[in-house]
């Protein structure tokens, strides 16, 4: 196994696994539960390597005092990096325990096995086990010195579709961060300034009702109170009374930004040499800004503790952040308070699809709690989520293929115009939490950066996953970005895969070849070939009739993670309706196959919603979308039938599944619309009005 980075950074077993005398086995992970099922998958991995039952395991995810700082839960790397690290540590823990037991029993390690945490010799209980040995065995030793993970054939939990350990608990009780209650806790709502530099002229003249309080720090204003509904009402009442002194935004729109001045041009890859071709084919796709649109708004709870002399001693923040460690550093920087006296504890929020407002609300809660000396639960309002959260960036990707006389692609050129796909909070350099702009000593928000290739940001999957000898990829950064651009599931891959798959269709047509055969002719990776062939078979015979169409999309996410091929069928009347989607994925080892399929299906539905419906509205240089009425997403009556299959070698390394279907599904739908209408769509969403202009 390749040694994943997290276990290199946190090499000792006890940074990941420990045992206690009560028989519990304690696991620590930096990967957090976003709704993607990682909790269950990590337990499965550990249960196999440790030979314990699932219910013997206690897993702490995303606790800054306890978890390894693995980095953010992003990039479809939770299993590839996080799960594999835990696997090595868990295996090492078992091996160290057995080594110690063998010495005590004067036997060899080979005679010993573990079952339910008890150590057996030739199948017979020895009276020793993880619990009884827990106080004797040192685990602060390097995992890599001892780890011997089981071969695939010996796994019983990993590879099985174990039911999610946390699905029922989401239906009852207090599962979410939103449900956390502390003694003496008050509720808080932020009065969001309408623009940078806006000043609430008359705030001192406004008296709050019913014992509620105003927290003010510069132009950060929040209403707090013991009763949640009254706090909301009062916040909105006060917000309406405020006379904001502000200058007008310049009336820019994200699309103007894409067509406007470019602040940075990078050539990420270039042709091997001069290219002479027979003809060129072009494809272009423009995509608007998109909202996360999670069903649950972001929530955080913060509590300052004071020393006996009344000094601030410690800050605890409960947040559903993808990176509690970076959040801690950002909070330390903004609050001017030592990071080692801040604890950030992950508690799940609603579905997280990228850099949303979960970090911002953590700062809001900390500011309210500091200003009031009370524990505070802060929740963003639904309009805040649309108006002020980071957005998936607007992008324009243009691709050109140069074909030789036989129709084969000999050169490929991609130009991606997009702001960076990350303005994540990273700590001191760019704390990047919304309220920092409004406090007494404001800190400007950072403009962000894209990760370098091969991960990429805006340029993710702009390098084609096909065999093309000359590849040029350029990334152009627009100067005008009137919003917070940041990571949304797949980053640039959604747009780039759609553009590339449109290009492949157009090239196939120009070469007068079947488009599936054409793709296969540009592939030698057998796993890529297999998923494409398999989805062709899965979708069965496809008869296009008037007003209907079929389309395909294929990609290997980041050219390194899971493979996914997808076919969609659409019916087009005055709108596009996706009736069926077939998808075949290869993620190597699927820890939980059903969980993987769940993620693939979810990505498909979300991608269809993005492609057909979604578009954040701007006016006067700012977002004006405020509600679900303004921003419809895919509904129950609109979802297609989805058939998903996993193939591929189950004993190969796990490749990551969370984001693999977004690009291919988008591509399949856009190509299907093209098949139905005979017109090549070049911008999203493919809404009713877009269809009208396409057809006219």
């Amino acid at each position, binding site marked *: 196994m390749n040694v994943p980075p997290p276990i290199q950074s946190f090499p000792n077993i006890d940074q990941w696994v420990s045992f206690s005398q009560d028989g519990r086995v304690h696991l620590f992970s930096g990967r957090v539960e976003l709704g993607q099922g990682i909790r269950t998958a990590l337990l499965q991995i550990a249960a196999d390597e440790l030979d314990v039952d699932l219910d013997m395991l206690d897993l702490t995810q995303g606790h800054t005092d306890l978890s390894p700082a693995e980095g953010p839960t992003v990039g479809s790397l939770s299993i590839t990096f996080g799960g594999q690290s835990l696997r090595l540590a868990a295996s090492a823990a078992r091996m160290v325990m057995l080594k110690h037991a063998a010495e005590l029993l004067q036997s060899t390690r080979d005679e010993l096995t573990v079952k339910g945490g008890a150590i057996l010799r030739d199948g017979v209980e020895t009276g020793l086990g993880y619990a009884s040995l827990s106080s004797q065995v040192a685990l602060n030793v390097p995992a890599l010195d001892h780890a011997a993970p089981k071969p695939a054939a010996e796994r019983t939990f990993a590879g099985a579709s174990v039911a999610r350990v946390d699905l029922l608990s989401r239906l009852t009780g207090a599962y979410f961060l939103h449900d956390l209650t502390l003694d003496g806790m008050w509720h808080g709502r932020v009065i969001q300034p309408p623009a940078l530099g806006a000043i609430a002229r008359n705030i001192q003249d406004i008296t709050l009702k019913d014992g509620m309080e105003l927290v003010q720090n510069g132009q950060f204003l929040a209403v707090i109170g013991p009763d*949640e*509904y009254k706090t909301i009402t009062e916040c909105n009442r006060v917000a309406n009374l405020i006379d904001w002194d502000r200058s007008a935004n310049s009336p820019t729109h994200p699309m103007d930004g894409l067509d406007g001045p470019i602040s940075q041009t990078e050539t990420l890859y270039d042709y091997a040499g001069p290219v002479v071709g027979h003809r060129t084919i072009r494809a272009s796709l423009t995509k608007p800004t998109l909202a996360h649109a999670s*069903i649950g708004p972001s929530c955080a709870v913060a509590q300052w503790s004071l020393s006996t002399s009344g000094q601030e001693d410690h800050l605890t923040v409960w947040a559903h952040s993808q990176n509690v460690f970076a959040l801690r550093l950002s909070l330390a920087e903004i609050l001017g308070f030592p990071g080692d006296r801040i604890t950030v504890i992950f508690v799940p929020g609603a579905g997280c699809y990228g850099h949303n407002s979960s970090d911002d609300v953590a700062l809001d809660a900390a500011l309210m709690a500091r200003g009031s000396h009370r524990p505070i639960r802060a929740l963003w309002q639904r309009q805040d989520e649309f108006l002020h959260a980071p957005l998936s960036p607007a992008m324009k990707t243009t691709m050109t293929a140069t074909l030789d006389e036989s129709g084969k692609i000999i050169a490929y050129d991609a130009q991606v115009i997009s702001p960076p796909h990350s303005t994540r909070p990273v700590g001191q350099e760019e704390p990047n939490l919304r309220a920092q702009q409004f406090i007494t000593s404001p800190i400007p928000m950072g403009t962000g950066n894209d990760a370098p290739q091969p991960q990429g940001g805006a340029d993710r999957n702009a390098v084609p996953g096909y065999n093309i000898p000359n590849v040029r990829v350029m990334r152009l950064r627009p100067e005008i970005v009137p919003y917070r651009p940041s990571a949304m599931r797949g980053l640039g891959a959604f747009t780039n895969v759609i553009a590339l798959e449109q290009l492949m269709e157009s090239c196939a047509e120009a070469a007068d070849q079947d488009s599936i055969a054409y793709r296969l002719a540009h592939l030698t990776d057998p796993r890529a070939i297999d998923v494409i062939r398999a989805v062709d078979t899965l979708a069965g015979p496809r008869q296009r009739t008037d007003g209907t169409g079929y389309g395909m999309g294929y990609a290997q996410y980041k050219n390194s993670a899971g493979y996914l091929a997808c076919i969609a069928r659409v019916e087009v009347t005055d709108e596009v309706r996706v009736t069926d989607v077939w998808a075949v994925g290869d993620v190597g080892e699927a820890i939980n196959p059903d969980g993987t399929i769940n993620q693939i299906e979810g990505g498909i539905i979300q991608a269809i919603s993005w492609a057909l419906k979604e578009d954040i509205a701007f006016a006067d240089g700012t977002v004006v979308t405020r509600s679900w009425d303004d921003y419809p997403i895919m509904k129950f009556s609109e979802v297609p039938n989805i058939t998903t299959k996993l193939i591929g070698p189950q004993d190969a390394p796990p490749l990551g599944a969370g984001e693999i279907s977004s690009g291919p599904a988008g591509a399949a739908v856009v190509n299907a619309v093209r098949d139905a209408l005979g017109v090549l769509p070049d911008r999203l969403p493919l809404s009713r009005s877009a269809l009208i202009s396409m057809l006219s």
Partner: protein
Amino acid sequence: MTSRISFTLNGAPRHCEAAANTPLLFVLRNYLDQKATRLGCGHGQCGACTVIIDGKAVTSCDFPVSEAEGKSIQTIEGLVASDHPLITAILKHQAGQCGFCLPGIITRAAPLIDQGASFDEIRTALDANLCRCGAHGRILAAIDEVTL
């Protein structure tokens, strides 16, 4: 100004002291410690706050608690406690990812299932409930299993 409002909650008589216009959602979550009904948008547009009042699905975020006087309220907690077949089906199909939308979806669908509504009627009714993670297919499969 508050008043005492009495109703049946998941089969048991309960009451609260609340201002008449307090949405039922906040009474459930904050006064009666029933945390599984969720605040999604506060405007009746997403369905996450759906509860069952006298056998009908209602968005509780814009339902004044005063109108609950004398009525019978069922929340997701009650459906779980009474082992509603839809919940068994949801778990069987692993019909959820983040699960935030699920209580509202279950409370919308369950009374329709109990009244013998068809799959298509229930699917149409579920347009009042949003799911962003994309568990729709599995949720519909679970509903299909428990409708006649």
